[in-house]
Every structure is written in structure tokens, then in C-alpha cells.
């Protein structure tokens, strides 16, 4: 029992950043934009968060600056793809290259410098009991991620603004002809995606390993991109998917450390599992006759008004 609880705690840590980043990307993709720069924006968020945490020791300020830095990075992407209708795939890749280089340069004087981890959000007494620890013992980003899942779901499905955003992603020409600003909506979505990726990046030094290391997100931005597809662009499935991916990433290590049946699975298969699972899910979705949950129709296509 104790081990199960301990595993849950680690899974929560591993899942939170990919959940936050993927939630942002989900909104971006729902608006019809494919931003493959998540990894780059996460790295920029990570270094921004680290630097602020190092100098101020205020983790909330650190998360906020991660969000601001991620937003700034996403605006490069937004300007190119939305204002100048540049190719989204290429721009996203360029953003990842940029984020990797920029964060390495900005962080070069911050090696060998630890920061303090973010403290649990709730009063310690609640986390005294093991079960309490598993439920109440986390710092702010973990709960933030849950709240945001609910908020994003509510926004997309129960608000007028969410409806407009989905309309923009499904049929930009119609949305435009009704009089909505396709570009404006997409800008807001891209900025939200950048802010979330930045927060997710800042979680690395604040939540997982309190240091700065070049490329410390180590490909998790790509896992977030996969996750959005895995969840077939649905927030609640995204939550489940993030925890499933987190479990896969974590169980490999617990299995190796503890021995047992699972430990015979090669680590390479564990590492490839999220991606293979995503392809399988894509196939399964498409096989369904009532495929209402497929990708946003305008995903990745630039908007050029036809008038």
C-alpha cells in the first residue's frame, strides 16, 4: 500500500508538466493552429522560472515569469504564422531550435546553482496521514493543472467564447464570414498555449529537480504534443492521458528498481510506448463510424480570407 501511494506521488510529479503544456497546446490546436514549438517554449519557461526563483525565492513569481516568457516566445510563432501566414510546422520547429539555444545561452551562468523546491500548497496537517499526503501534499502547479482541465473544458464547451474558438478551428472561413476575427482568436489561443508551456517548463526546476540544466525538459514537449492527439483534443481525456503517460514514464523506473515482471520490458519499449499508443489511438478514433472527435478540421492550415 505504501509503495502504491509513493508511486502515485511520483506519477503526479511526472504528469503535471506534460498535462499543463498539453492543455495549452490543446486550446491552440482547437483553434486550428499546430504549434510544434512546445519543447522550445517549455525550455524558455524553465530558464525564466529558474532565474526568478534563484533571485527572488518566490515560486509564484517564478511561475508567472515562466508564463510570461512562454507567452513572449509564442508571440514570435503567432506573428509569423498568423499575421504573416507562414507555415506552422516549420515555424514551430524553428521555435524549438530557438528555445533550446536561447535557454542554453541565458542559463550559462546559472549552472552549479540550486534553488529551493516549491512548498506544498496546503497546510502540513492535512498531509500527515499517508492518504492525506497523496491527496493534499502537493504544491500549487499540481492543483492548478486540475483546475485548468476543468476550466478549459468549461470554456470550450459551455461558453460563447469557447464556441467561437472551436468554430475558428473547425471552419475558419465561416467563422470569418459571420464576422469573428479568426486571427484575433488564434492569437489569444497561441498566447495561452505559450503561457501554459512556460508554466510547464518552470515546473521542472520548481517541482522536479531544483536546478537548471540545458535541455532539461528532455523531449517532454514532444510528449505533450503526442498527448493532445492521444486525448483526441478533449480536456478530460487529456487529464487521463497525462496521468497514463506519467505512469508509463514512472513505472519503468519503479519496475527496474523493484524487480518483478514488468522489469523485463526493455526500457526502449517503455520510452516508445507513449508515441506508439498515440498512433494506436489515432487509428482507433478514425475507425469509429461516428467519428465526431477527430482533429480540428483547420489544424495546421493558414487562414487566408477568400474575399
Amino acid at each position, binding site marked *: 500500500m505504501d509503495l502504491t501511494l509513493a508511486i502515485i506521488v511520483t506519477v503526479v510529479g511526472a504528469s503535471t508538466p506534460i498535462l499543463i503544456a498539453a492543455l495549452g497546446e490543446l486550446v491552440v490546436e482547437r483553434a486550428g493552429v499546430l504549434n510544434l514549438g512546445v519543447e522550445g517554449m517549455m525550455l524558455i519557461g524553465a530558464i525564466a522560472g529558474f532565474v526568478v526563483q534563484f533571485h527572488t525565492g518566490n515560486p509564484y513569481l517564478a511561475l508567472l515569469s515562466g508564463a510570461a516568457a512562454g507567452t513572449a516566445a509564442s508571440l514570435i510563432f503567432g506573428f509569423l504564422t498568423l499575421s504573416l501566414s*507562414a507555415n506552422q510546422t516549420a515555424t514551430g520547429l524553428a521555435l524549438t531550435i530557438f528555445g533550446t539555444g536561447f535557454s542554453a545561452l541565458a542559463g550559462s551562468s546559472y549552472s552549479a546553482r540550486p534553488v529551493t523546491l516549491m512548498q506544498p500548497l496546503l497546510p502540513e496537517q492535512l498531509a500527515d496521514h499517508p492518504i492525506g499526503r497523496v491527496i493534499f501534499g502537493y504544491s500549487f502547479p499540481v492543483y492548478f493543472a486540475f483546475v485548468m482541465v476543468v476550466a478549459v473544458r468549461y470554456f470550450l464547451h459551455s461558453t460563447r467564447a469557447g464556441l467561437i474558438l472551436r468554430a475558428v478551428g473547425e471552419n475558419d472561413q465561416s467563422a470569418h464570414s459571420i464576422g469573428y476575427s479568426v486571427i484575433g482568436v488564434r492569437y489569444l489561443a497561441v498566447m495561452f498555449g505559450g503561457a501554459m508551456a512556460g508554466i510547464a517548463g518552470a515546473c521542472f526546476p520548481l517541482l522536479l529537480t531544483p536546478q537548471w540544466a540545458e535541455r532539461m525538459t528532455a523531449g517532454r514537449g514532444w510528449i505533450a504534443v503526442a498527448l493532445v492527439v492521444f486525448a483526441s483534443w478533449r480536456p478530460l481525456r487529456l487529464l487521463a492521458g497525462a496521468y497514463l503517460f506519467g505512469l508509463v514514464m514512472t513505472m519503468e523506473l519503479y519496475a527496474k528498481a523493484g524487480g518483478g515482471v514488468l522489469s523485463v520490458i*526493455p526500457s526502449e519499449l517503455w520510452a516508445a510506448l507513449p508515441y506508439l499508443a498515440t498512433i494506436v489511438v*489515432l487509428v482507433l478514433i478514425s475507425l469509429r463510424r461516428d467519428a465526431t472527435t477527430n482533429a480540428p478540421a483547420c489544424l*495546421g492550415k493558414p487562414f487566408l480570407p477568400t474575399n
Partner: protein
Amino acid sequence: MQFRLEKRREPSQFMLYATPVAAVALTMIVGAIIFSLIGYDGVGAVREIFLTPLTNAYKWQDLGVKAAPLIIIGVGLSIAYRANVWNIGAEGQYVIGGLAGTGIALLTYGMTGWWILPLMVLAGMLGGMAYAAIPALLRTRLNVNEILTSLMLTYASVQLIYYLIRAPWKDPMGMGFPQTRLFSEAARLPFIIPGTIVHLGVPIAVVVGLVAWFIMTRSVFGYRMRVVGAAPHAARYGGFSEHKTIWLALLVSGALAGLAGVLEVAGPFQRMVPGFPTNYGFTAIIVAFLGRLNPLGVIVAGVVLAITFVGGEVAQTTIGLPNAATGIFQAMMLFFLLAGDILIKYRVRRVVPQPSQGAA
């Protein structure tokens, strides 16, 4: 004074070719300014990254070797992108091509014969093709977005390398290090210029570019690709099946990525190592765009990217510019290029503001 964008009746041929040149020039200017502002030798950085590899004849062989895989993959991608098929998993197809070639090299280990290398090349191209066939199948049969599937497959392919070289293909004499044994002589790509590292893959890259250019401009295949990409509806009326085009686009780009993979493993690497995936497949996407999806342009763009890689190392040794700067220069170049794309279809018009009218 205000400006507004106005759609051109015809895409500007001048801008098509002027914008990549302008992007490189702007990168050099802005890069010099930015790096000077943050305390590096900005002008020196630009000189070492962009000019030294060109002016130093000793570096030309490096440019050729570095550019070859970028060109081969970039040519394939430019063909696919022309047809609006977004294969971004060339890295995975490159890896599988390299692995297929490695498989043949290990099977024929210790043997001699002229047939070994051609067999490896064939296996590599088939491997890349087979891996690209997965997104093609999913796209044509199930309408699954090929951007997503080809990307996911890339990450899976890298894990396959790690598995193979750690377990079944591990070099028995390699001190336990995860890598295969060195290929025997017959499985290594020959050098073509004595005393240099220029291997057979370099002229192959140029030939691939020229042949592709010829096919794209002079054959029905090229016409089909361009028409389907530019005007899918017209293409349907013209009798070009969209599915067949998707298949062709993915198989051709996959085969070329696989070719690059097998040439790379048989040439510079001569064995499979964990460091084999060096992002050529992703960098080639930049190359394809920088080369304007034109095979001849891709040859030039491949060399330009190679210059930044080689020059980035020169700048580290001569002026102490950190490795991260190379990535920033490459990203900047692509940003400027993509920003300039709009000028092909639109022109900038100066608008005399009129009191009664708001901004456009």
C-alpha cells in the same frame, strides 16, 4: 505614413528567390547586433559562422559531407511538400534507412563483394519507404493526419536504435558500449577525393537534386505533384487521384530519407552508434523551406545550413562563442525566411492616411 498588404495577381518570382537571400543577410546583420549587445564579438561571430567555412578551402570537404544528407532528405521533403503532404518524420525514415543498411552490413560481416553496398543502399531506401508507408496508409485509408503519425514514428524509431545496439547488435568487442561493430571494408562507402573525407554520398546528393529538379519540372510526375499541391480540386478534375499522390509523396520522401540514412551510416559513421540520429531529418525541413521547395534551391540551402553548423564550431574555437549561438542563428534565419514568405503573394503598399478611413 502607413503600409498595407495587397494581394498580388501572380506570386512574385523575384520575391520567391530574393527573400531567402534577404533572410540570410538579415540574420547576419541582426545576429551581429544582438550578440554584440549581449557582450560577444557579434561581427566576429557572423564572420566565423557564415564566411570562414566558405573562404577556408580546407572546410569545403566538411561542408560537402554535412550538406549531403540534408540535401538528399530536403529534396524528398520538397517534393512531398509541393504536393501538400506534410511528412515531418523524415528523421525516423532516415533512422530506419540507416538501421536497414546496418542490418545488411552486419549480415554480410567479413564478406567481400561489390554487391554489398548496393544491397545496403537498396535496403536503406526500402526501409525508409516502408516507414513512410505507415503514415501514407493511415492517411489514405483512415484519414489520419500524417504530420502527427510521422512525428510519433520518429520518436519510436530512435528507441529502436537504442534497443538494437544495446542488445542483439552490440559489438562483441566494444567493451560493452552500446554500438555495433565497425562495418567491414565492403560495407563502407568509398572516398572519392583522395586525402579528404568526401565520400560517394556527396556526389549522390548533387545528382539526387538535379534528377529531382528535372523530374519535377519536366515530367508528368512532377506536374502531378505541383498541381495536386497548388490546386487540389483542379487536380481531381484532371484525373490525378489524391490518394495516389499522397502515397507517391510519402514513399519518395521516405526512400530519400532512408537513402540519406544508409549513406550516412556506411560513410561517415561506419557503424551504428547511439548518436546516429543527429536531427538531419528535422534540419532538412528547414532546408526544404529555405530552398523554396525547389530541388536546386535545396542544394544551395543544404550548403547554407552546413555552413552554419561548421561555422558554429569555428566560432567556438576562435572567438569562444557558445554552442547555443549556432541554434539561435539558425532559428533566426528561418524566422526571417518565413516572415518574408508573405512578400511572394502580397505586396506592401504605402497608404496615405485619410481622415475618414481607419487603418486596414
